[in-house]
């Protein structure tokens, strides 16, 4: 029996050696957002990958130029939405570098504490979705159960779960709430058990091992050439961590290791992040020990908003409040590039100031943007199913890539 098909569905006979181009995305669930890949295939083998980005472009860098410095913080939350506190920190520290502000000890410790909690949270989303892409469904629920606890902690401190805007120019939005340390300690007590659960579910899993080992190889030289940073670079055996290389906000005082793996493949990048979970927990424990009472805002009345109570009794506090909100504060002319170690790699913020209350140019060097540009190199010669594993292993967030 023959069925007549409309012309667009007509079966075309292809010779066996011919290549086929298919479009993966932008609605593909394992591209972590709206990413389109144009794949040239020879059978199941990938000949060429061309990533097509920009579907989420919202012109954030343009928007910064029309906002006062303190208004820019909320834009940063929306870039890498899995690591918003890291984005806050990079931006805020770049402005503080221009202003030459001294940040009180307690604020710095809280910044480290919150950033490391956020790093664990970001890695948990990576772990859950990476495993889900490869076919292990259970891990996702275990990860999101733990991440929920972190989001609750961030919510307790800042009031926001995904968009905290907790770090402000000159310090923090406010001090930690009463009982935060106890809740944080509770999370830390439970977390090692959760890590061992992840290991039980994935690390010893033969299917997961065979899907990841020897896949998506990028050598150390190529990784540097392609500008990879963060866990993706450390998975290729290069021990570079900006928390150590160019320490900021007091990271030089904490005792932690930089996990590296020499496998250069998806598995190596997986192991690096799994070990980083433990290191981040170590840093959180140390930060809790260092937490001493003190101010959380710098002594800079022209830059930092005054306390609510002070505004009711001091005229100058009221005037400063009005000026900061209405006019903003002037930032000395100059340019800075401030890099931090975000959960995905080097997050650099370039700010050029012309001396006014609004920046002349703000540029975000997102680690996802650069790491994704190396995808064609890693995917060449692999099977089409491995592309999903490789995308998972470089941990991209499209909000940061497209900005």
């Amino acid at each position: 029996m023959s069925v007549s098909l409309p012309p667009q569905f007509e079966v075309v006979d292809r010779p066996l050696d011919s290549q086929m181009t298919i479009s993966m995305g932008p609605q593909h669930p394992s591209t972590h957002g709206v990413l389109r890949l144009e794949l040239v295939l020879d059978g199941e083998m990938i000949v060429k990958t061309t990533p097509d980005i920009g579907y989420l472009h919202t012109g954030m860098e343009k928007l910064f130029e029309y906002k006062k410095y303190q208004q820019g913080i909320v834009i940063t939350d929306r870039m890498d939405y899995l690591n918003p506190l890291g984005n806050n920190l990079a931006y805020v520290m770049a402005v503080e570098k221009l202003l030459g502000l001294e940040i009180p000890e307690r604020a710095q410790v809280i910044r480290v504490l919150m950033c490391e909690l956020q790093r664990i949270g970001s890695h948990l989303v990576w772990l859950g979705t990476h495993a889900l892409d490869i076919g292990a469904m259970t891990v996702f629920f275990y990860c999101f159960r733990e991440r929920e606890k972190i989001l609750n902690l961030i919510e307790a401190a800042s009031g926001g779960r995904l968009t905290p805007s907790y770090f402000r120019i000159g310090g923090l939005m406010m001090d930690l709430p009463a009982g935060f340390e106890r809740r944080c300690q509770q999370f830390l007590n439970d977390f090692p058990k959760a890590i061992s659960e992840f290991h039980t579910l994935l690390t010893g899993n033969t299917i997961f091992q065979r899907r990841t080992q020897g896949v998506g190889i990028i050598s150390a030289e190529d990784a540097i050439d392609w500008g990879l940073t963060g866990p993706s670079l450390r998975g290729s055996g290069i021990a570079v961590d900006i928390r150590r290389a160019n320490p900021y906000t007091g990271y030089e005082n904490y005792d932690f290791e930089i996990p590296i793996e020499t496998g250069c493949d998806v598995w190596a990048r997986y192991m690096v992040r799994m070990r980083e979970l433990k290191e981040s927990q170590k840093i959180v424990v140390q930060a809790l020990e260092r937490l001493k009472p003190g101010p959380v805002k710098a002594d800079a009345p022209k830059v930092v908003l005054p306390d609510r109570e002070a505004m009711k009794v001091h005229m100058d506090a009221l005037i400063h409040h009005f000026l900061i909100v209405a006019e903003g504060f002037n930032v000395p002319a100059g340019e800075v590039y401030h890099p931090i170690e975000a959960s995905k790699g080097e997050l650099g913020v370039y700010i050029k100031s012309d001396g006014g209350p609004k920046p002349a140019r703000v540029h975000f060097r997102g680690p996802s943007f650069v790491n994704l540009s190396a995808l064609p190199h890693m995917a060449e010669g692999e099977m089409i199913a491995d592309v999903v594993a490789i995308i998972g292993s470089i941990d991209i967030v499209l909000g940061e890539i497209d900005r």
Partner: protein
Amino acid sequence: MDIERQQQIAEQASAPAAQGQHQSPVLTALRRAGADWAGEVLEAFGEVTAVVAREQIAEICSFLKTAPGLEFNLLADVCGVDRGPEEDPRFEVNYHLFSTTKFHRLRLKVLLTEDDPHIHTVTGVWRTANWHERETFDLFGVIFDNHPDLRRILLPEDWQGHALRKDFPLRGYEPYSLT
């Protein structure tokens, strides 16, 4: 603006200059490597910036990548800056270099005029420059000669103008439609 406020700004502006009195190791290493190609080397806010001529950018980058004592083997970022339509030279292209062995950083700055915004690509030195240069081309209209694939990257291919130029309005000229 009141006088006190102006004074404070003046103090803030002079404070970073006072910090930068002792030379950074990068600056010393650059001097030792005979950085006669650098037009002007500045240190501000603890960061070293070298202004270089646009004709030499690719050579300088490949020199810095391997020069002993410098070893800037990782290109962290390339970003364009528009100083405004009334300025000449109007555009800046900043290259942020990082060394994975020495852990130091350097910014190379190239100035370009509006009439001739051409610069040689550095994709031959670092392959990561590919996307950074495409982004700078897309948003500022800086043309990187000999780039292997100079297309728009963030904005649609049929987009008119370059969105991060100062004379491009925040909300664009007209609503963009994909259909």
